[in-house]
């Protein structure tokens, strides 16, 4: 295992091209043989540079977890390519994949369900080493010992079982297991959302310390915008299997461009009872449509306050804007300047800044 810390370089650590996952769902017909694709993830282009944290936010059913699992190939993509460290790993067989999987690991949301209740903490953390050909010898035990220290667990934890720990400590075990193979990319899938609020900050701080000390790259998937903003360098917003917007974290929160990003941010409660949002902030109506039958054109058009005729038929491309964001929205297209919707959108944008 190379000890060099990956530095920022032009070639991204991870590159996704048109990554797509359609789950066939039996929807009807005699014997339910008619299937409809559930478009969980639909043509995602994304890059992650070594050493950065890319936050991926979106509401339930937007496809963010499916995307995370496809990247480490727990779920097989329907289409598209995954390029990790310059190698296309999309179609590698299990044997060839094993070598690359050392480099990419995942931390799950539920530290209760993700750990085998019959294994000791030592066995849980050592298991990936054994799967990758190591022997359960003194060196492996030393490695477990080092990992416990790294994640802030006492050495006496090694002989204990998962149920003896609190949620926060269990998540530390999950992180130790993910790091034991010395990966460069960690997919963190809602790593703090099952934890009590007073414990979440400990795990967020730990993940930041580990990134700094080990030069890790994170894909941080969460529905909590505040946590994502805190930990990320860049943020990607997903809606119904597509990316709506990507930008630097400060830019995306200070100056969101996509109407969905704006609505998401406006819906987050403010920790100030003198600034209640009811009646002051724009709410989007309605629910997220089904991924079995996503709306044609822009998928957000059924809830968008600025919908234009073009939005109902043409899917907007994810294009760079003058502000440096990548945004998939027809309002950004100068050909629609002067339409009623774009005028209202720009007026709202000016109002937000004052």
């Amino acid at each position: 295992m190379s000890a060099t810390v990956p530095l920022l370089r032009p070639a991204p650590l991870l590159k996704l091209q048109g990554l797509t996952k359609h789950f066939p769902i039996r929807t009807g017909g005699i014997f339910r043989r008619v299937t409809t694709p559930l478009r969980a993830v639909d043509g995602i282009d994304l890059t992650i540079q070594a050493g950065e944290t890319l936050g991926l936010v979106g509401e339930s059913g937007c496809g963010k977890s499916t995307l995370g699992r496809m990247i480490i190939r727990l779920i097989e993509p329907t289409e598209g390519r995954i390029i990790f460290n310059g190698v296309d790993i999309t179609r590698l067989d299990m044997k060839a994949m094993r070598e690359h999987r050392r480099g990419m690991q995942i931390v799950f949301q539920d530290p209760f369900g993700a750990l085998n209740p019959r294994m000791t903490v030592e066995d849980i953390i050592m298991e990936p080493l054994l799967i990758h050909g190591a022997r359960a010898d003194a060196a492996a035990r030393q490695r477990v010992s080092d990992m416990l220290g790294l994640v802030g667990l006492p050495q006496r934890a090694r002989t204990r079982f998962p149920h003896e720990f609190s949620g926060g400590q269990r998540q530390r075990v999950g992180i130790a297991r993910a790091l034991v193979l010395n990966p460069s990319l960690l997919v963190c899938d809602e790593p703090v959302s099952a934890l009590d609020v007073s414990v979440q900050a400990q795990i967020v701080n730990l993940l930041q310390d580990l990134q700094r000390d080990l030069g890790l790259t994170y894909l941080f998937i969460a529905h909590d915008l505040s946590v994502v903003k805190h930990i990320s360098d860049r943020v990607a917003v997903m809606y119904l299997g597509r990316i709506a917007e990507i930008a630097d974290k400060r830019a995306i929160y200070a100056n969101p461009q996509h109407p969905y990003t704006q609505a998401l941010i406006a819906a987050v409660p403010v920790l100030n009872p003198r600034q209640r949002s009811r009646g002051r902030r724009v709410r989007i109506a309605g629910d997220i449509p089904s991924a079995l039958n996503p709306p044609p054109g822009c998928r957000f058009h059924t809830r968008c306050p600025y919908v234009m005729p073009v939005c109902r038929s043409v899917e907007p491309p994810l294009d760079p804007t003058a502000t440096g964001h990548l945004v998939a929205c027809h309002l950004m297209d100068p050909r629609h300047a002067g339409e009623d919707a774009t005028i209202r959108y720009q007026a709202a944008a000016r109002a937000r800044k004052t």
Partner: protein
Amino acid sequence: MSLLEVRDLTTAFQTERGEITAVEEVNFDLNEGEILGIVGESGSGKSVTALTIMGLLPQPPARVAAGSVRFGGTELIGMSAPRLERIRGSGISMVFQEPMTSLNPVFTIGEQIMETVRAHERVSQRAQRDRAIEMLTKVGIPSPELRMSDYPHQISGGQRQRVMLAIALACRPKLLIADEPTTALDVTIQAQVLDLMMDLRDEFGTAIMIITHNMGVIAETADRVMVMYAGRVVEHAPVNTLFEQPGHPYTRGLLQCVPTLEQDTSRLSAIPGSLPEPGRRPSGCRFAPRCRWRIEACRAALPPLLEQAPGHATACIRIAEVAKTPFSIP
């Protein structure tokens, strides 16, 4: 007289390891049209407090060990099941976190709202149906006449929580207890449901007890707030006071450990340690093992909940020292 008066409420559970007290000495009043927020983490006793008031805890293993709950002047503790049944729904009703498990999957939405009306009021079938449609309209369900014949699985999670609110409010209860009503919902839907609850309070004058772990939900809705930790109330204050001059170190910790969209700090101020399990609570102040203000005396005895200003009470013997340290939310 307040609508709801809770005095020294203490609820215990029989377990294999002996009797465990889930909630201890809870005191509060709730007035008509008022929204009381109860905030706490797992094991704080916030949900047990609500279920005790509703008389919904199975006894045994649960037991109201002490205290009184008076609703409109009538004592609820020890009340017979049929009388309690009449109060639930028409006087007090409750919505839960998971609307899918609270709705009956084999009845239509319309039938479930009409059933609630029928259980408490002697009105015609036609009037029940009209009331159900009216309530669905009030909670913002589009085309309510059509949705009446939908089953719970046919509508989304946000719509189900609206239906739960429609059922809970169908008999115009004076008190609504909402236990984590938006925790299972997405943030855009949460905002809609919280707005709706406040609109309904404004329209009907319903008093609301909102139970949550989310300080943001409290800031958006509550008039007064009670903070619970490990079965006890540690602070009770008007909402502005709680967010601007929190007294208890735990309240301060809760407000400062969550990142906000406005802040730009590089590191979160975490509360060390973890929550005590109900059977293994420390002696003295329950928060002392995690508290940076603790002194020897904190471990010796439970700190009393004392009023430091009108309407603002804190259970901390170090309150004078804590209050000297300036506080702000990052």
